[in-house]
């Protein structure tokens, strides 16, 4: 981070990829304007940044790229408010700012030597993509045992990173279970069903495993009992929370759950940690 933690690094939009058929999700590939900034920017999968649009403000967005991917950062942004709408309308070559990396990360140390189950739903798949790319990288793959992915969206057109999913599907060092809530495509080659149901069907053991779970509240609500049934301990069910944020560094005061700031003490929490906190998120 620069000396002033509120000051964003200037970056250029190198590429914009429309991810979903409803065009509400776009991935922005960003390159640093200054080489020094790029070298200073060291992140770990699970962290996020404040994307900073001059005149429109800042938005907290998970980093979708992996630190093993050099020379750029990826952010997948859902069009919801003023700043995201503006960003969606920007062109390649445009200048924005990036402030970060912010927050904590998935428990990589603890997960070493373990099986990792990744469960994602809808557009909450960004830092999970980062995590999978990171784990599959030749330098890291041996640090983890079996890697399993369950990822679902409402329909095929709403899945993120479809090309990569198809590639992962072909690999033999990751088990991939893609699912959609429904589809009218008779040739759909993957699963149909909600994420919790597919999880129940495919995941039979929690032995020596961690689960990383990101998705809409409803998915989390119904996936949690499935994981508990297979024997996942709350300490090993890892989630990433969203909250309205401004400063991103634990100072401005709005994103707390109990005495934890989601921006600084999170966004990654284990279910065990969340169980100790007020249900106010």
């Amino acid at each position, binding site marked *: 981070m620069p000396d002033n933690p509120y000051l964003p690094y*200037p970056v250029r939009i190198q590429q914009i990829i429309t991810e979903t058929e409803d065009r509400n999700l776009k991935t922005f590939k960003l390159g640093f304007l200054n080489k020094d900034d790029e070298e200073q920017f060291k992140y770990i999968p699970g962290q996020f940044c404040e994307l900073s649009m001059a005149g429109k*403000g800042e938005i907290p967005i998970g980093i979708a790229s992996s630190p093993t991917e050099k020379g750029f950062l990826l952010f997948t942004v859902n069009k919801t408010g003023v700043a995201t709408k503006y960003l969606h309308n920007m062109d390649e070559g445009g200048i924005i700012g990036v402030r970060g990396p912010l927050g904590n990360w998935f428990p990589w140390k603890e997960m070493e030597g373990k099986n990792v189950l990744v469960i994602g739903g809808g557009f909450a798949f960004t830092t999970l993509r980062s995590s999978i790319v990171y784990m599959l990288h030749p330098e890291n793959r041996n640090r983890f045992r079996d890697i399993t992915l369950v990822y679902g969206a409402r329909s095929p057109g709403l899945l993120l990173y479809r090309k990569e999913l198809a590639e992962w599907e072909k690999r033999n060092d990751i088990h991939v279970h893609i699912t959609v809530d429904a589809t009218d495509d008779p040739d759909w080659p993957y699963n149909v069903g909600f994420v919790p149901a597919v999880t129940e069907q495919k995941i039979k053991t929690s032995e020596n495993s961690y689960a990383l779970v990101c998705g809409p509240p409803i998915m989390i609500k119904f996936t949690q009992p499935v994981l508990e049934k297979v024997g996942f301990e709350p300490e090993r069910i890892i989630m990433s929370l969203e909250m309205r944020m401004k400063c991103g560094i*634990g100072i401005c*005061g*709005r994103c707390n759950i109990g*005495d934890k700031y989601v921006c600084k003490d999170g966004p990654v929490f284990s279910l065990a940690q969340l169980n100790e906190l007020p249900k106010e998120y």
Partner: protein
Amino acid sequence: MSDKVIKKEELPNVLKILKETYEVFVPVKEKGFYRFKVLEDENKVDLNFTNTRLSPKSLLFPQSERMFEYSLDEADEDAYVIKEPPKDYAPTVVVGMRPCDAKALRLVDVNFVNPEFKDPWWARRLESLTLIGLGCKEPCSTCFCTSVNCGPFNEEGLDVLLFDLGKNYMARAITEKGAQLLKLAGVSEDATSDLNKQAEESKAKAEKQIISHVPTDKLKEKKAIDLFDASFWDEVAFACLNCGTCTFLCPTCWCFDIQDEVNKKKGDRIRNWDSCMFPLFTLHASGHNPRSEKVQRVRQRFMHKLKYYLDKYDNGVACVGCGRCVNYCPVNIDIREVFKLMNET
């Protein structure tokens, strides 16, 4: 450094000397209440005030502050690049800050300057400030500073503490910075042992005069989640208007918002005081709001002050007992009663 004496008639002269080196802030009564303003006429300084209506936190943390600026003009080489404008950190003296308000700055400091991140504006302003406190010889019935690790002559956070002893002030340097300032201002006459005794008596009398006491002893051991789920919040919150008065007057409320404001091709990034009383404070872009109900917001304010802060920093509660919220809540939600509920229930 031994305690010094300033004769009241010499105070203008002392202030005049300070004015040459420092920007000097003093309490000024304007439109019916006191606020800290830049000293204009040292002969008209009036230290016979109870306290300022708003806490002096704005001296370090203005209600609205420009953080950054940028150009949106494509013709500019660095269009859209966010930059920090130069700021003024001239050495500043505040004369007459009440001990509770000085203590509050210490409580807030752990938020703005934490092990990982330092708020540069808060930190630099704090460095540039020298605080001359004025002990409270006549505390109000709503003051409860002695219950919350503070007191009418508490020294924490101050550089100099003044004791008002009739014809004289006794000046006690608390920090090296304070000692330097007294030296610079030519305050060199040692206080007599008699004056010293008077000061101690004034302090003891003031402490005794504090009639409001709040219990805090059980707050630490209670579980946050039990207090969060306690049954009394609906009753506490009913009358609340969700106006931000308590948070805006409070010396320990620090929450802020960040907003971009654009005028033609020039833009500023501004931070403004914000309040956990406002529904907008936690509203997600998606429309979801974890604290959509009034009772949740009222609970948040008290839980933050009396429990979360305590748990997070192990630095006592985030309240100095100044009584501002007690006096100015339009519907009489009295934090002293909430202390009792949280501590005793």
